[in-house]
């Protein structure tokens, strides 16, 4: 088969581009450590979340030194807890599930973003920055009221976070 010299050059450059793209994704995973949402969590009965330790009472709790876990339930049409309050400059792992249909969980303007599928628990870990209020959006169509489904993720000072929790407010 005859292939023009320029075309060979183009072919080589194309393959190089493809390898660079695969390389950049691989680097993102092993270098900065961008982990994928994966199958690490066990499946869950979406219609029996009331009986589940983590999701019967959606909340944020401290699980280690400056490490927090946020258990979030998405439903038609909202998120619990709301707002989700987490301390600044900490590591927060979100565990998110749905009690009805497929939803999205997106902290607007950040890369905290995952699908929420009934029967599964999505796990994403983020590092919070300084104090800020973020919008929380369902980014997958979930029914006629999809556009009203919103929440907040409030990154607050450590003191405020402790105050809220000591005050009996479990958010």
């Amino acid at each position, binding site marked *: *088969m*005859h292939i*023009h010299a*320029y*075309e060979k050059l*183009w*072919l080589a450059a*194309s*393959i190089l*581009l*493809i390898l660079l*793209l*695969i390389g*950049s*994704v691989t680097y993102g*995973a092993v270098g900065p450590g*961008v982990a*994928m*949402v*994966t*199958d690490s*969590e066990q*499946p869950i*009965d*979406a*219609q029996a979340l009331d009986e589940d330790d983590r999701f019967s009472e959606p909340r944020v709790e401290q699980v280690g030194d400056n490490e927090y876990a946020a258990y979030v339930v998405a439903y*038609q049409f909202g998120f619990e807890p709301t707002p989700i309050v987490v301390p600044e400059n900490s590591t927060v792992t979100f565990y998110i599930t749905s009690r009805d*249909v*497929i939803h*999205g969980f*997106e902290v*607007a*303007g*950040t*890369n*905290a*973003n995952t*699908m*929420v*599928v*009934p*029967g*599964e628990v*999505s796990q994403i870990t983020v590092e919070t920055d300084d104090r800020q*209020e*973020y*919008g929380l959006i*369902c*980014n*997958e*169509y*979930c*029914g*006629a*009221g*999809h*556009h009203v489904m*919103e*929440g*907040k993720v409030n990154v607050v000072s450590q003191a405020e976070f402790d105050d809220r929790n000591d005050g009996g407010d479990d958010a």
Partner: protein
Amino acid sequence: MSDAIEAEQSFVDKFPQEARVVRAALLSSFFALTLGAVFGIVQTLHRTDVARIIPSTDYYTVLTAHGVFMVISFTIFFLVGLFTWAVTRSLDRPLIDIRITWTWYAIMAVGMTMTGVSILAGFFPALDMSADVLFTFYAPLQAHPMFYAGLAVFIVGSWIAGADWFRTFLAWKRDHPDERIPLQTFMVLTTMAMWYIASSAVAASVLIFLLPWSLGFIDQVNPTLTRTLFWFFGHPVVYFWLMPAYLLWYTVLPKIAGGRLFSDPLARVVFVLFLLLSTPVGIHHQYLDPGIAEGFKFISMTNTMFLLLPSLLTAFTVVASVEYGARQRGGTGLLGWLTDLPWRDPAFTGMMLAGLMFAAGGFSGMVNAGMNINYMIHNTIWVPGHFHLTVGTAVALTFMAATYWIWPQISNKPIYSRSIGLFQVVVWFIGMALMSNAMHAQGIMGVPRRTAEPEYSGFEYATMFGGFEELNVQIAIGGTLLFVSTVLFIGNLVLTMGNPKVSGLAESLPPALSGPNDAPKVLDSLRLWVGIALTLVVLAYALPLAAIINRGGLLGPGVGTYPAWIAPTLDALAAAVTPLVGAIGKVAASLVGVIL
């Protein structure tokens, strides 16, 4: 000497029956385009809060209609028309039996009507029928059974269409045992082989799970399983939209440019690569799905990146072919030849602008495919920004541009106004440039896709590349231009259909510079390629599907139904049947009384 004076026969002169089918398919396609455009403008103005003429809850009916009519009806009806033309033309023989051809056309039309009616019924609450599930119909959101049944019927129609072309090819092969498969037929056959593999999954999802579920035969489905089966089909279907455009770029565009295709063998290589790589990549739509292991996502990502190769090769071949055409027309210089191209021809300019936008769409696609940066834009309006460049322009604009070239040959009617045609394709390009660019920008800000009201009460989007509101204005203007462009296209075509028939509209397609005999014979071995394609699909999907079923069960763990269709349907049925049963009982009782 009368032979020499008579004009060359056009497609419709040679194959009048096939030409009728092609026209019918194209008109069905454009009918869907018209409906899709109406819903498109309603949606654009609603989303951007310029004019909200419908309640926001109806937005999702509009969105479902826009999506399904555009990417299923418009694209696939055009495809079956174009492929019928391409097979007949390149084999230079009629189809085996035109009744079979009309049969699949009718089946597809009936299927799409069923699905379309079930969607549009959503506007009328009294009808107790709706399918507000969008193009992706993710369970456990449920549509009326007719939505799923119509899709299944439509897909079966497309399978018979493929069989029709394969049988016609085999008949040709018996008469021409030693010839290479003509290029256009080769493109049709490889595309259809890919389609059989890809659509089998969505057919299985619909027939085994979603349709029985919507009819109440099973209580629940596994949302991850049906979602994965959807994307098994959902990625290759984008190549099903794109391959007719590629066929036109490879075989028609070089001719319009005044030249010929650069390389026939490489065109074959590209179509074989699409057959091999289109399907084992669907999981890249599920990078952010829980319940699917990271490793499967990584494999899908690498396959996806290699899928760039055939498109990059296409960019080279198409540009080289066009440059060759320009130089044949007297073009010179490193870039000076660009001025020697037929820019006043709407078919040429439309296809070139479509190709240019496809390059931009390719780059935003690389971002989507990049597993980790995908977090930034997943399910944001960036994604529709991306696919309005690919299917919404590379495909749609190529189809419209090609219509200016092909319609005269299948009808013997010259285009009503080529100037309006030229204006129309340029307006599409400008409209899409505005709309798509602003959608990409909003996506990076985190503005979600698929929502009636992207403004929220609790927070404001950060400002980048202009604020949210300013980008909304761009989207609204862009969407309006696209609507105007569609109206011009349809109007021009309708006026064309009113033109008197003339002769002399025939166009021939020249052979490639480097012809099929330069291509290794193995390229024509469709069995081999289908075998490898199936192997790759099994490698990419066997383990993920097994894992998904293992986790969630074949029929899902404790997942409900939203909304439940069957309960009210059954209630109505019961209400209708109960008095009937009572009446029959009375009749039976009186009969018994009479007899005794």
